[in-house]
């Protein structure tokens, strides 16, 4: 089913002193996937990512990127990787362009033409010769994406890339990532403690808790699909009458009174019947919204209610 994985972690453990930070973590990421790392702060996401890019040593186990062992063949392994580790910290006293020149020099084969290309891709043409200290956070983030893409990596590793970004910036970043996976077949590994983000961005999500991977699942499965039994928010008034009618139809256990009206747990097929029943009792209906179980609910379920963020 899976092609040769781009990244493969095998029984990776990290101990600092007597403390085990990462405990026996294994997973594979196939080509072209956006793979998310989800977990509360301190769960070990950043540590795992830092071991993948060689910023931290691996106590035991192996990490391979395109078949190259990160610990033993660092230079060959990291050649395929573009990274943003937390906020992309650039040299503020240099211009955006010179920052890119700096990183271009460190990988063989990055031409001036390629620098121009990525600058265009992240739409920084007008400001690229300004000093980075004059950039807004969003522009820095874009420059961060540019430096990560400079050497045409097959794998992008992003650690908390949305930290400190405004909603527009987050959306922009998400669009880039989607575009990159679709058009260039790049694989992306991204970590975040923001569930809503991961939900929109990732194909598959690994949930991490206290240094262990608790669950790895396609995002779709994790949040449940529309066809399954789910709950529906029915905006209706008067609320009391709507509640009574809904209980009459579906039973008290399936109905919840909410400020907007009622929330009913039912199969999709039953929705028209419920609505018809409500209308017969002269309830006015303003809208029906299917309530998906969100990643957050699922996450809380899996992690036993531990707070996130």
């Amino acid at each position: 089913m899976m092609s040769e994985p781009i990244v493969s972690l095998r029984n990776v453990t990290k101990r600092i002193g007597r403390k085990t930070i990462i405990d026996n973590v294994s997973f594979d990421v196939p080509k072209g996937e956006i793979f998310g790392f989800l977990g509360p702060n301190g769960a070990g996401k950043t540590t795992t990512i830092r071991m993948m890019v060689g910023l931290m040593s691996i106590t035991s186990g192996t990490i391979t990127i395109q078949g190259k062992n990160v610990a033993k063949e660092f230079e060959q392994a990291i050649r395929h990787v573009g990274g943003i580790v937390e906020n992309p910290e650039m040299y503020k006293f240099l211009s955006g362009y010179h920052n890119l020149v700096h990183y271009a020099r460190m990988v063989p084969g990055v031409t001036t033409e390629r620098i121009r290309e990525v600058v265009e891709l992240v739409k920084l043409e007008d400001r690229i010769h300004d000093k980075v200290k004059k950039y807004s956070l969003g522009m820095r983030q874009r420059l961060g994406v540019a430096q990560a893409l400079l050497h045409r990596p097959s794998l992008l590793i992003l650690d908390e890339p949305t930290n400190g970004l405004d909603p527009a910036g987050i959306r922009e970043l998400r669009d880039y990532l989607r575009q990159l996976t679709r058009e260039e077949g790049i694989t992306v590994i991204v970590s975040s403690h923001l569930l809503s983000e991961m939900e929109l961005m990732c194909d598959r999500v690994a949930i991490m808790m206290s240094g262990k991977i608790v669950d790895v699942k396609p995002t779709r499965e994790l949040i449940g699909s529309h066809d399954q039994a789910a709950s529906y928010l029915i905006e209706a008034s008067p609320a009391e009458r709507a509640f009574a009618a809904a209980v009459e139809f579906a039973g008290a256990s399936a109905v919840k009174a909410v400020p907007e009206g009622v929330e009913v747990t039912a199969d999709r097929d039953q929705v028209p019947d419920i609505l018809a029943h409500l209308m017969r009792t002269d309830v006015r209906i303003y809208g029906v919204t299917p309530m998906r179980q969100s990643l957050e609910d699922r996450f809380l379920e899996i992690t036993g209610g531990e707070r996130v963020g």
Partner: protein
Amino acid sequence: MVNLILNENMKLYRRWRTWVMVALMIGAVLLGSFVEWYYDDKDAPPDAWRTEIAEEKEHFNKLLADPGMDEETITYAKDQLAIGEYMLANDIRPESGTMWDGINGSATLVILITLFTVIVAGDSLAGEFSTGTIKLLLIRPASRSKILVSKYISMIMFGLLLLVVLFVVSVLFNGVLYQFKDIGLPLVTTDAAGNAVEKSMVANLWLTYLLNGVSTILFVTMAFMISAAFRSSAMAIGFSIFALFAGTLLTELIQAYSWAKYVLFANLDLSMYLVGRPYQEGMTLVFSILVLAAYFVVFNLVSWLVFTRRDVAA
């Protein structure tokens, strides 16, 4: 490797700070030389040095006549007499009152080079850690050892640049002040046998630079090591500058102990073997060079071990 050094140089020379240091260096040379020139007696007849030497001769002869003089003073007086004789006989004037006075005086400004290069060295690694740029720097196909070496080389190159600036500016500016008179003046000194000999002024100047440069390299390497180990620019720069100034004081305090000769600071001034006497009885030039080499190797080894092994966290 070349690309890595180009990168380090780009980060160094595209900063205001670096050029402020170069400007300060030039300013210090100009100021020092100007003051030296300003207080020269410009009305003195061109032959005035002959009378001065004659007066000195009298003074040294009086010293030699005194039976209570120690060995060192006697040798010194004899040397000075030989030099004076030679100068009078060959019509060579002393450097005092010529452009060489200012140039040789500027050689003491090597301490500024040490200071500035220590600042660069102390910030070189620690600065990347404190701004967080180290993370993006290390996730490239370049080993940490190569990055460390490129930083070290670029730092030494900066020191050399300052040295060349010092040399060029002091020669040019003093030359202009004295209209390049006496530019070919030789240095008269004595050999081991006490005979007066002529030496090249420029060669002597570079020997002075080189001897002072030894201590620059060691202080810079020390700053680099602290920078790598503690990842704090302030600590690396602060401690190294403190050591630069307190080192001499420390060596005086511990001079009585025999182990003091193994202390870095006691060996830094290699010119003690050319003029004057060693810090402690029994120390030789080779001994000092070996001690300095040992410190040099240890400092670099520590930098390398710490930088290549340690995790980049936070």
